[in-house]
């Protein structure tokens, strides 16, 4: 009985086993494990042996302590060996973990479940770094570590919030190309600084995160390199250079400004008075002269007269005392410019009589106006040629506006008859100018330029009386008085311009004491009178005979000429025409 039942039982059992074998043919995956990073949870499993093309794996997930198992259909993919379970394990960082199981399925066959060996918890999350940024600051590498920012992470689950404290980072720096470890340190913050100690080259940095209170493993980040080169233009150097350049510009600007100011302060050339050169003196000598008359003079007379002549300032007067040229009489072309005829004077006074003396000042090239004050002292050296001569109405080119031009007498001796006549001619000049005078002569403007010492002298000779009466004090007066006596010292004539007196006043008999001549000079200190005495003997070094001739004109002849002014006029005019 029993043996009959055994056979069907065996058959049934074999069939059963066969069916079971068919349902469980497939081997179960050998292992199942999680590989997780921060919000990146991947379930892995090893494939079964002898899997076919249609073999796929089923995954189920269980929250530890929470039933039941939850199937994950997204993982049912053919021949897959892993599955991303991040979306279904978002509470990993807040619960006790998860359990996962996997089984192989191929058609109607499936394998046994294989459960993950360990409970998948936050302890199994591998720590990573999002990114590392490097920059160079003051000879050191400054790094910033950025935590991972996975897209699947919920809004509030940030790396810094979940792992609030005890975050640490291990930093390794390799120097290229030698590839030796430059430094290895651990920092507790996301910012770090690595001093390079002035080394140059390429530095590659790697970072590995960790949590000191946890056993979580960390992985090294990608290598980030930075190159340090020598900086020639650091901000410090640049700022220093800019500062120096700015200071240099300021200094240059000050120098330029200073130079410009100095240039502006330069004296205009018009006001620059030329010193008389010997050449000019020689040219003066070549001026047209009237026939010389030799006047013999006493030596004493010469000496006395000389200072007066010097002070006569026949050429130019600088009442203010500036720029009076004092050439020797010989050097000058003695031309006394008579001032413009005063209405009372009858127009005799220096209408453009080109003063010979003035040439020395103007160099014979001047149509100088009254502003050009030029003092040219006549050479009073007696006996030398040329003497001072009166040029009445001549030399318009040289004439001053109001100067009385006295032509240097070639005779050189004012004492001689000719000289006296010449000088005598001078006398009436002032009160009456010949009609033949140069039409180009400057009209009398009320002031006579005292240019010639001889002029002064001749005036003084006859003006002893005039002076006494005409000493108004300040107003410069030209005195055409002829000197009568040789013994009188040459008076100081006013420099510059003298107001023209009426003719009558100018003609005065001589005989006044010599001392009177000195009065005007004394009374007119402001005018800076240059008396004949200024024409010292040293000035007449080469024309010693001329000076006294003019200054010490024959008083008698001059006086006689004054008395016979009418006679003198034609003489002057004749002189003028002759010239």
């Amino acid at each position, binding site marked *: 009985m029993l043996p009959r039942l055994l056979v069907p039982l065996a058959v049934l059992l074999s069939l059963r086993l066969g069916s079971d074998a068919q349902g469980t043919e497939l081997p179960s995956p050998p292992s199942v494990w999680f590989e997780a990073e921060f919000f990146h949870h991947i379930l892995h499993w090893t494939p079964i042996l002898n899997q076919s093309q249609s073999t796929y794996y089923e995954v189920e997930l*269980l929250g*530890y*302590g*929470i*039933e*039941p*198992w939850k199937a994950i259909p997204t993982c049912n993919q053919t021949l897959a060996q892993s599955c991303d379970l991040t979306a279904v394990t978002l509470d*990993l*960082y*807040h*619960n*006790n*973990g998860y*359990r996962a199981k996997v089984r192989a399925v191929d058609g109607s066959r499936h394998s046994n479940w294989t*459960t993950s*060996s*360990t*409970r998948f*918890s*936050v*302890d199994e999350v591998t720590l990573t770094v999002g990114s590392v940024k490097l920059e160079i600051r003051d000879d050191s590498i400054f790094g910033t570590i950025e935590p991972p920012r996975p897209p699947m992470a919920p809004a509030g689950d940030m790396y810094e*919030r*979940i*792992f*609030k*404290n*005890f975050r640490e980072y291990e930093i390794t720096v390799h120097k290229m190309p030698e590839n030796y470890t430059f430094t290895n340190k651990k920092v507790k913050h996301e910012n770090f600084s690595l001093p390079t100690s002035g080394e140059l080259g390429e530095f590659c940095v790697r970072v590995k995160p960790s*949590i000191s*209170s*946890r*056993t979580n493993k960390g992985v090294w980040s990608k290598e980030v390199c930075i190159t340090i080169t020598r900086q020639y233009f650091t901000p410090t150097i640049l700022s220093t250079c800019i500062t120096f350049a700015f200071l240099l510009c300021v200094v240059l600007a000050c120098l330029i400004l200073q130079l410009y100011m100095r240039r502006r302060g330069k004296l205009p050339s018009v006001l620059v008075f030329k010193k008389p050169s010997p050449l000019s003196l020689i040219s003066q000598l070549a001026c047209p002269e009237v026939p010389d008359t030799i006047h013999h003079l006493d030596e004493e007379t010469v000496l006395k007269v000389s200072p007066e002549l010097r002070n006569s300032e026949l050429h130019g007067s600088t009442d203010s005392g500036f720029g009076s040229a004092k050439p020797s009489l010989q050097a000058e072309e003695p031309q006394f410019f008579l001032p413009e005829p005063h209405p009372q004077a009858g127009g005799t006074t220096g209408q453009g009589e080109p003063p010979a003396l003035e040439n020395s000042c103007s160099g014979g090239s001047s149509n100088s106006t009254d502003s050009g004050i030029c003092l040219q002292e006549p050479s009073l050296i007696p006996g030398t040629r040329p003497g001072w001569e009166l040029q009445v109405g001549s030399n318009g080119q040289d004439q001053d506006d109001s100067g009385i031009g006295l032509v240097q007498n070639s005779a050189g001796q004012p004492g001689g008859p000719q000289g006296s006549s010449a000088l005598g001619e001078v006398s009436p000049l002032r009160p009456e100018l010949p009609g033949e005078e140069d039409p180009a002569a400057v009209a009398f403007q009320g002031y006579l330029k005292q240019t010639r010492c001889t002029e002064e002298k001749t005036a003084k000779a006859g003006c002893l009386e005039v002076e006494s009466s005409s000493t108004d004090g300040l107003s410069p007066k030209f005195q055409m008085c002829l000197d009568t006596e040789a013994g009188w010292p040459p008076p100081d004539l006013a420099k510059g311009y003298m107001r023209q007196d009426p003719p009558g006043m100018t003609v005065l008999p001589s005989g006044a004491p010599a001392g009177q001549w000195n009065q005007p000079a004394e009374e007119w200190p402001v005018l800076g009178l240059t008396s004949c005495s200024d024409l010292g003997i040293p000035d007449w070094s080469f024309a010693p005979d001329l000076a006294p001739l003019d200054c010490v004109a024959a008083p008698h002849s001059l006086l006689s000429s004054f008395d016979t002014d009418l006679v003198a006029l034609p003489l002057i005019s004749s002189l003028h025409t002759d010239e």
Partner: protein
Amino acid sequence: MKMQVVSLCLLGTMLFLCSVHARSLKRCPPSMDMNPVKESFQEIKGAIQANDTFKNVTILSNLHSIKPVDVCCMTRELLEFYMKRVFKHREELSLQISREVSSISNSFLPLQRTVQPCKKQSLCPCSEEAISATRTIINNYDQLEVRSAAIKSLGELDVFIAWIDKNYHSETSTA
């Protein structure tokens, strides 16, 4: 005037210190050094948890619902549970696991010594909720077979460690 200012400063400092002390007294024990436990558990975690057959059951299931007031009581109770009920079954496990479990047991002793003064000072009261939570844990443990329960309890040490870190080391706000 100066004396008044000084006295006020002293008073403020004393108040501040008292508040800090009170705050520290609030939490007893003030800290728990779980690092040795962590290191030992890491060694056996895979093996222990792999042998956990009842994966849908958890023993320490209600730790998330424990209030901060009951943390001290629960800490004291759990330490006692592991020392008396779980660690004594380590001989049934493999040698490696047994060795590490012994190390963990040795690390629990100083933790108990840390909590003991709190109980003596009546700074570690146990509320009804704490007592109820402790009773649930023991029931869960008793429902399983002894060996499986022991293995499961050892496997859930990481849950216990995480709970300790959360309550005692607020800086490490872990799961």
